[in-house]
């Protein structure tokens, strides 16, 4: 009687299904991650040992650097609502297309008068146009205060939450510039705000 032959099995596994799954996951993660808008104002954040994360909703971010202030309200619905309110206040009518384009702009720093022109530009043209001089903060023409006030109203109406204000300042920015912005906030009775910093490696 011949010995029963042990059949050799192939050691290779069919990887096709695994490959499919992993690429599906990869695609999902790439698409679900919101594309980060490049910051028009380049700031170097100071570091701190704090561990609290910045919330993503109901927040306005003031970017301060080179003596200029840029503004951003988080959330597309908030952006549109804020733009409508600010348009009413300054008697500027924004078309639905302009509203749509505005809702995807991140941080911006143009006076309200040239906002219409700015919104209709393409990304690279915006940078070149030289319109980004920061939002006017003079006591006579304090548009920043209006932006903050209208976005607070928009957040309160749409999400019935209080809006948080955070300051993203450049490390080398002088304290007087920060103080000027903080004074504007305090005029609106915002006495609590957060400073955005980067995480410091471990506890120094």
């Amino acid at each position, binding site marked *: 009687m011949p010995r029963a032959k042990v059949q050799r099995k192939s050691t290779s596994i069919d990887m096709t299904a695994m490959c499919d799954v*992993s690429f599906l996951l990869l695609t999902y*993660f790439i698409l679900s991650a919101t594309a980060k808008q490049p910051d028009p104002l380049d700031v170097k954040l100071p570091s701190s040992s704090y561990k609290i994360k910045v919330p993503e909703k109901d927040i306005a971010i003031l970017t301060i650097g080179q003596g200029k202030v840029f503004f951003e309200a988080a959330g597309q619905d908030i952006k549109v609502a804020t733009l409508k309110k600010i348009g009413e206040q300054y008697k500027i009518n924004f078309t639905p297309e302009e509203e749509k384009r505005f809702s995807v702009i991140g941080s911006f720093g143009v006076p309200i008068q040239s906002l219409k022109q700015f919104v209709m530009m393409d990304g690279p043209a915006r940078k070149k146009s030289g319109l980004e001089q920061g939002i006017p903060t003079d006591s006579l023409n304090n548009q920043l205060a209006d932006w903050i006030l209208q976005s607070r109203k928009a957040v309160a109406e749409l999400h019935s939450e209080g809006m948080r204000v955070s300051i993203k300042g450049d490390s080398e920015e002088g304290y007087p510039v*920060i103080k000027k912005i903080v004074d504007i906030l*305090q005029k609106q009775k915002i006495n609590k705000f957060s400073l955005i910093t980067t995480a410091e490696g471990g506890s120094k």
Partner: protein
Amino acid sequence: MAELDTSSGGGKKGGKVRSKKASTKVDLTAMVDLAFLLITFFMLTTTLNKPIAMDIAKPDKDDKSDARLELRASQTMTILLGKNNKVAWYMGEAGKSAPTVQSFSEVRKSILENKQKVQAASGKSIVMVIKPTSGATYKNFVDIMDELAITGIKSAPAIDDVNITDAEITFLKQQKLL
């Protein structure tokens, strides 16, 4: 990964010379490795890239109520932020004791020392007053708030950039910190 050749091996000895059929199977292992590496990378970067918030409360400016807390002079430590990344600090009332000028790396030790001294002398926790002057940068301000957090000072520090006294200004000017 090596794949064992389990095909019959198309006997070369004798017979017809057959054209060798290339296998349609591609080794996907490397591709799967790469895909999972990318997944891991994207997952980690999306969650780790979040900036950190430091909550700051400033005293209300229009507060007209008289209910103001009296502070014991012996219990307060005032830190003045000057230019060139220097600080000047003193205990107690302004002008009575000469402020000490230090750099940011040294100030933590002083804060800790003073904290212990106040705790031992009065049994109360220290009260910090931070006075950023016009010479200070934003980084200095963030750094000093961070120092307070590191040294474990629980009570909210008073951030006072309005009431900088003349004595303090003259001192800072003398030390070339303003």
